[in-house]
């Protein structure tokens, strides 16, 4: 009796089994984790090949089929997100080996791996799901594992931030659940296909609103971002990288999917979403300018970048979402890679220098050159300078906005870009200033293996920009949002 295993099942079950094994055998957790990550990456590659060859694939779990059972579906967008997750995840895992190697960190080592693998299960599950209640359960898996990772260090600040995160997470999930309830009231089914072509009645509008607010809370869209900076800034570096690079993306992805299947929101509503995004860009920028610590600055930049993604999304114009989702998807990918690199680099800098107070970075005689270089590369992508993927995303955003005459979104993007230059240049000044150092500067300390993973990520963030055309055509497999007229 041979077992037919589909790549989609593997993408979800491999991390799950990995988590179980890592939890059972704490001593071998790191090894199990890496193997599970590598295997999952393999499964995602397999799945990508399948999707590339034959378009979107569907797996009806239990053989029941959509309305009654739950289908898994993989199209270009979901595979791209899976690929982002496993690639970033694998590299972050490698760097976690180094980041958690301290003698006092055995506890963190022991729990990092099961939590992270459970998180991966949840994230992969989100990207393959086609059922809104299943999405609810998945975001709860993500939430619990993510909170566990947030408080991994066990400091008071981290626990405090983790608790706030937990409240926000639960509330967001419950709002989403209430939305699911309203969808059920109106339509009597919960799969994506059932949502399509539904008349936008009052109950359905309420459902969309509830789910959107819930997800906005989870993804920290201004003004619901209050929990994010502390949570991301106080976690240990690999956890921060995962939280900022991957976790918020899951909620963003659900927003994208809902927009795809739910009745098209009115222009006014989209503008409102864009305004929230613009608020995030500006408020996040201001706070990043004022932040005193490096990791806090990076966390605030996440708030701003999330806002930008929503701006990209909101500039739909006459074509509807057929084009604007691509800009959003590109920005999501770009931010995922670059932010993970940046948090890892920030963690390395903090480890080497011993603190991350931005004002005093230039007082340190130790200069972790490679980590600083990584940070700068990631910043280039986040600012949106060519040829990074962030630049391509911004290009797609502004092009669409300009073509449909939405100059306000162009202005918002430009303001956001300038602000990001301003706040990142604070950090660069700290890296490159030398006249405040008392001791001789120990520079260029050779190649630390720990820098390899973040550096790879940062180079990917830059280099992927040149591969935007294949990425875009891959994203369009299965035509998530229909073909442009």
């Amino acid at each position, binding site marked *: 009796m041979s077992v037919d295993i589909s790549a989609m099942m593997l993408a979800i079950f491999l991390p799950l089994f990995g988590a179980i094994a890592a939890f059972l055998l704490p001593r071998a957790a790191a090894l199990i984790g890496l193997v599970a990550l590598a295997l999952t990456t393999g499964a995602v590659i397999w799945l990508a090949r399948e999707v590339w060859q034959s378009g979107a694939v569907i797996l009806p779990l239990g053989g029941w089929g959509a309305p009654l059972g739950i289908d898994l579906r993989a199209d270009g967008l979901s595979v791209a997100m899976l690929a982002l997750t496993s690639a970033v995840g694998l590299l972050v895992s490698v760097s976690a080996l180094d980041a958690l190697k301290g003698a006092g960190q055995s506890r963190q080592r022991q729990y990092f791996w099961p939590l992270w693998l459970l998180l991966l299960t949840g994230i992969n599950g989100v990207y393959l799901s086609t059922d809104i209640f299943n999405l609810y359960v998945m975001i709860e898996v993500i939430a619990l594992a993510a909170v566990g990772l947030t408080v991994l260090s066990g400091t008071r600040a981290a626990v405090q931030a983790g608790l706030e995160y937990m409240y926000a997470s639960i509330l967001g999930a419950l709002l989403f659940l209430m939305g699911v309830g*309203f969808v059920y009231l109106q339509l009597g089914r919960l799969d994506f296909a059932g949502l399509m072509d539904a008349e936008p009645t009052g109950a359905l509008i309420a459902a969309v609103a509830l789910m959107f607010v819930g997800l906005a809370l989870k993804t920290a869209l201004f003004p619901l971002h209050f929990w994010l900076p502390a949570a991301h800034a106080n976690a240990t570096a690999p956890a921060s990288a995962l939280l900022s690079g991957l976790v918020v993306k899951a909620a963003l992805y659900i927003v994208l999917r809902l927009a795809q299947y739910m009745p098209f929101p009115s222009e006014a509503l989209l503008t409102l979403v864009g305004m929230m995004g613009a608020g995030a860009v500006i408020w996040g920028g201001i706070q990043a300018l004022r932040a005193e610590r490096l990791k806090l600055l990076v966390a605030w930049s996440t708030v701003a970048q999330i806002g930008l993604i929503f701006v990209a999304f909101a500039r739909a114009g006459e074509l509807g979402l057929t084009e604007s989702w691509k800009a959003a998807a590109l920005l999501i990918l770009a931010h995922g890679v670059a932010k993970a690199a940046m948090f890892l680099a920030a963690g390395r800098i903090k480890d080497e220098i011993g603190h991350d107070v931005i004002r005093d970075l230039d007082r340190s005689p130790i200069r972790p050159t490679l980590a600083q270089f990584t940070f700068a590369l990631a910043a280039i992508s986040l600012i949106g300078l060519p040829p990074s993927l962030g630049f391509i995303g911004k290009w797609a955003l502004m092009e669409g906005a300009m073509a449909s005459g939405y100059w306000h979104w162009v202005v918002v993007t430009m303001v956001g870009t300038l602000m990001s230059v301003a706040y990142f240049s604070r950090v660069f000044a700290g890296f490159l200033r030398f006249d405040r150092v008392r001791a001789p500067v120990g520079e260029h300390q050779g190649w630390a293996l720990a820098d390899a993973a973040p550096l790879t990520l940062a180079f990917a963030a830059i280099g992927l920009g040149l591969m935007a055309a294949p990425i875009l055509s891959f994203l369009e497999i299965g035509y998530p949002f229909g073909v442009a007229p």
Partner: protein
Amino acid sequence: MTPDLIYGLTGIAVFGIGLVGALCVQERLRRVLALKLCSVGAGFVLVVGAWREPPEMPDPVPHALVITGIVVMVSATAVALALIRRLQTLEATDER
């Protein structure tokens, strides 16, 4: 006046009360409770959606969903409470 109407509105009211609590309350334990109220409210809406006029059987799917929701919520509550306990301990040691 049928039960679904009465309890549906009850559920929404409970959800709203929980929402107020979640946004306004400062005490940590009470916030957890407020969130729990929200979840009960959402459960009400789903159970009400499943309800059919008595001779007919109710729709079992939402029931299963609510059971899942309850288990998920107790897990989340347990984690939140663990965080609260830990935070209290850390604060107490900091003050000493």
